[in-house]
């Protein structure tokens, strides 16, 4: 739209016609106070804090609802305005309790800030304040009514942003009150967006309520460890008896690819890290069959000795390695590297939840066909096949809803269930659960398939689209994906996204946790830069996949199995006897079903306790920062390195550390003590990376960036906190199309909004929420 020119506080500014005065001012650094205005939500004009004087208008106007106009002359901070704002604050404070000293929001409360600024310290009111007891609305949401300033932000974010509409406003004037949808409780998605958006401490969360003060925590922005969307979550950590404990997950720092969004898991399901069930000492099974706690050195010696013996006596093919979908890229990369170059085996796999190989294969040779998750918030049209994003990819669902609300995006849905996103869809059709492949062919013009008139109409509209984003779940695999991609190519500039389930499912796939694929989906038997670099010790035949490893174990053909952060025994219902003659090493946080059968259990750190990178299911690469700490555990990276080292492998070949950077490590005592720390801080502050030790993930990231096709991102941008998109199907990929008949071995997790694989079992809060919401739906179904 055309620009208009106006004068604000004597300054001439320009802004596109239609811009709200408040936004136009913010853009040029003039801050107009606001409680009820919230970017991206509908306008409310309830709080009157944004009052400004506009010449020729009889009264003060609300800047949050007034569009800029040509020649407008505005003042934003005169005595008259200050007085008006102070008066508004007095009204807001009339019933507001004086409990800032114990209020969760204290120190980060917008009402405190405004009162401080406008000095509404006194009050004309002599009446006794209305008091109401705090109410618990759900296992996570509490409401402290007297603190509420009736800005309606919570109501709007729940209605418009979440499309849940669980909050309303009832009664009127001083009696007005925010009300939950189930009379005295909330029947909702429990996302906590309402809590985060509340400018005061009226809505609070059970996990954080009355626990600590904001300034007593360290705030670390890292990546949520649950679903494959990879939201940035800011963890508030605090010193505890055995390390650094997480007390809060939130999204005050809106700099991640998720903007202001977090779901129930990113916000509350960090408590597994604080669980008392965490393993903190290495365990080695004794001749009597019992576990004994041993020192780290001893445990690693046992592992290294047995791995070496297995390799030397029975060959690399007698060793199996199972990786995880929740470890970092660096760890996954190193795990396959040690498997291939130190153990000499291709028996490596992970829990596959979707067919990444299928999409990479279908997009072979194409450039820029992978969508970023940001595209879901801006694409003019989106086709979603399968999956239920509201339950399984909450951020994707949020982006889709926002895109519809703000840009009028056209959403096309085909699903075997009536998923909640149908409410945003331009067209929705229900197809049989086993009809996805046929539907993909139908889209491509296969007239033989029996889809009805509404499907034909949907296809006709799709054919008019350009810049279409096609998102599909694990319902589509292999040839179905090829058919879908073929259809996508018939339209101009289509992009694709394949939905996998866990935080680093995509990373595990990209890093080559496959028996037949090297990092970057390069076939094991071909020649590649990786093969050249690792040396030709890597076998050229494909190894065993996850299921085959257990079959081999049952036949006594697997001498050793190394499981890093997975619980295949529970997931696949493996019988105990299967592993009787296999030396089993498990790295995990908890005594999982697999760990129970192990010979050695090494307690590990989780994603919140380590650094590195992860890649979300869309291929957005992000930095993981260490937030918490637990005494007694080690990162998977450190353990892999230590095991290799103890086996006698050359650590410098495994991890290219210490190259090019030298640092004075200083002393641990005396005048120079802390030098290494200070040096580390200086390096970090200058976006430089020390890479001084073999446990430094940055050293491995160098190698990944150098060797893994698609991982040629901007390093400085990544370090600065901006997600980088990786495109593994870019140039340099070798012959993926040779792999057409590989078994897919996919087992979708079946997680809902309130579950999260094995990890979910150890989050008390998540379990509590699940029970709560399950009861609600049972009542509803009665």
């Amino acid at each position, binding site marked *: 739209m055309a620009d208009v020119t106006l004068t604000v506080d004597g300054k001439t500014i320009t802004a596109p016609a239609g811009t709200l005065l408040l936004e136009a001012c913010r853009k040029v650094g003039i801050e107009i106070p606001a409680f009820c205005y919230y970017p991206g939500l509908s306008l409310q004009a309830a709080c009157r804090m944004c009052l400004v004087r506009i010449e020729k208008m009889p009264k003060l106007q609300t800047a949050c609802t007034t569009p800029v106009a040509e020649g407008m002359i505005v003042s934003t901070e005169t005595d008259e305005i200050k007085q008006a704002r102070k008066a508004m604050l007095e009204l807001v404070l009339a019933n507001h309790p004086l409990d800032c000293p114990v209020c969760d929001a204290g120190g980060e409360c917008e009402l405190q800030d405004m009162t401080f600024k406008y000095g509404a310290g006194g009050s004309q009111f002599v009446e006794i304040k209305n008091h109401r007891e705090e109410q618990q609305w759900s296992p996570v949401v509490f409401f402290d009514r007297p603190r509420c300033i009736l800005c309606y932000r919570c109501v709007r974010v729940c209605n418009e942003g979440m499309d849940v509409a669980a909050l309303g406003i009832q009664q009127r004037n001083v009696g007005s009150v925010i009300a939950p949808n189930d009379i005295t409780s909330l029947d909702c998605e429990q996302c906590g967006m309402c809590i985060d958006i509340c400018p005061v401490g009226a809505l609070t969360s059970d996990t954080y309520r009355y626990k600590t003060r904001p300034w007593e925590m360290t705030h670390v922005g890292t990546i949520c460890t649950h679903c494959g969307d990879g939201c940035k979550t800011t963890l508030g950590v605090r010193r505890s008896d055995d390390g650094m404990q997480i007390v809060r997950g939130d999204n005050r720092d809106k700099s991640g690819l998720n903007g202001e969004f977090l779901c129930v898991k990113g916000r509350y399901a960090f408590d597994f890290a604080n669980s008392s069930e965490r393993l903190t000492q290495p365990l080695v099974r004794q001749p009597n069959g019992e576990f004994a706690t041993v020192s780290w050195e001893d445990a690693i010696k046992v592992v290294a000795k047995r791995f070496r013996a297995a390799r030397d006596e029975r060959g690399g093919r007698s060793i199996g390695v199972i990786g995880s979908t929740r470890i970092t890229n660096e760890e996954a990369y190193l795990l396959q590297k040690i498997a291939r170059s130190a153990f000499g085996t291709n028996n490596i796999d992970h829990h596959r939840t979707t067919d990444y190989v299928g999409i990479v294969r279908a997009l072979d040779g194409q450039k820029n066909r992978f969508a970023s998750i940001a595209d879901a918030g801006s694409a003019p049209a989106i086709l979603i096949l399968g999956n239920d994003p509201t339950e399984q990819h909450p951020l994707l669902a949020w982006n889709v809803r926002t895109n519809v609300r703000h840009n009028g995006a056209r959403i096309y849905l085909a699903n075997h269930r009536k998923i909640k996103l149908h409410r945003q869809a331009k067209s929705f059709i229900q197809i049989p659960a086993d009809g996805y492949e046929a539907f993909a062919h139908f889209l491509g013009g296969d007239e033989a398939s029996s889809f009805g008139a509404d499907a034909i109409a949907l296809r006709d509209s799709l054919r008019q689209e350009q810049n279409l984003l096609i998102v599909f779940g694990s319902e589509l695999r292999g040839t179905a994906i090829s058919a879908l991609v073929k259809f996508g190519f018939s339209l101009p500039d289509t992009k694709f996204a394949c939905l996998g389930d866990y935080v680093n499912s995509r990373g595990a796939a990209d890093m080559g946790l496959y028996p037949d694929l090297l990092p970057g989906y390069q076939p094991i038997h071909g020649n590649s830069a990786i093969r050249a670099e690792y040396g030709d010790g890597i076998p050229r035949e494909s190894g065993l996949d996850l299921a085959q490893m257990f079959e081999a174990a049952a036949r006594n053909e697997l001498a050793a199995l190394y499981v890093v952060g997975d619980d295949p025994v529970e997931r696949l219902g493996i019988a105990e006897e299967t592993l009787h003659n296999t030396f089993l090493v498990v790295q995990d946080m908890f005594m999982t079903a697999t760990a129970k059968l192990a010979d050695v259990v090494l307690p590990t750190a989780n994603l919140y306790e380590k650094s590195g990178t992860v890649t979300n299911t869309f291929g957005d690469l992000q930095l993981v920062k260490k937030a918490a700490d637990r005494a007694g555990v080690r990162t998977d990276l450190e353990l892999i390195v230590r095991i290799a080292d103890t086996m006698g492998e050359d650590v410098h070949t495994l991890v290219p550390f210490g190259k090019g950077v030298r640092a004075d490590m200083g002393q641990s005592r005396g005048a120079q003590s802390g030098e290494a720390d200070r040096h580390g801080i200086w390096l970090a502050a200058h976006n430089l990376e020390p890479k001084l030790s073999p446990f430094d993930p940055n050293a491995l990231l160098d190698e990944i960036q150098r060797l893994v096709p698609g991982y040629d991102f901007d390093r400085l941008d990544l370090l600065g906190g901006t997600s980088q998109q990786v495109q593994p199907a870019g140039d340099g990929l070798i012959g993926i199309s040779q792999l057409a008949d590989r078994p897919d071995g996919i087992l979708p997790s079946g997680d809902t909004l309130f579950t999260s694989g094995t990890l979910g079992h150890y989050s008390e809060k998540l379990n509590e929420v699940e029970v709560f919401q399950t009861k609600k739906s049972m009542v509803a179904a*009665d």
Partner: protein
Amino acid sequence: MSLTKISENPKPGSTIFSPELAARFDKLVTLYPVRRSALIPMLLYAQDEIGYVSDAAIAEIAQRLDLTVLDVRNVLSYYSMLRTNPIGKYNVQVCTNISCMVRGGQELFQHCKKRLGIGHKQTTSDGIFSLEEVECIGACSWAPAVQVNYDFHENLTPEAMDALLDEYRSKAGQ
């Protein structure tokens, strides 16, 4: 998740209202550019028929207008003349706003309290009368004024009030 409770969600087509009222609602929703504009009249008519706005009425109205139950409750709770609990057969609403106050409205209200033995927003044990102190009912020229259900009574004195109450009581017996 159950965003609207199925138990509160009557089957489409079935109604808890009389056939006449149901027909009236069917028409009403077609009269406005947006369906939800029919909400307030529907709540009023439902209250007239049932005596109050019951949970079942809320659920059916929500469904008829494609709103959530919460949406309906939000609006319902705003208006003091809409109620969610049964009251007496005759709702005696005594105005104590300015004009009525200077003409004895307050005394009239106190008199009613004593005479009926109940307070503001209470109901007599025989279920015949409810009493309410209300703001201006628009009959200032004939203050003090009282509204019983939809009927106005003006220029009242305690004696006239007694007669009025007697009259309603005998009507209730019929």
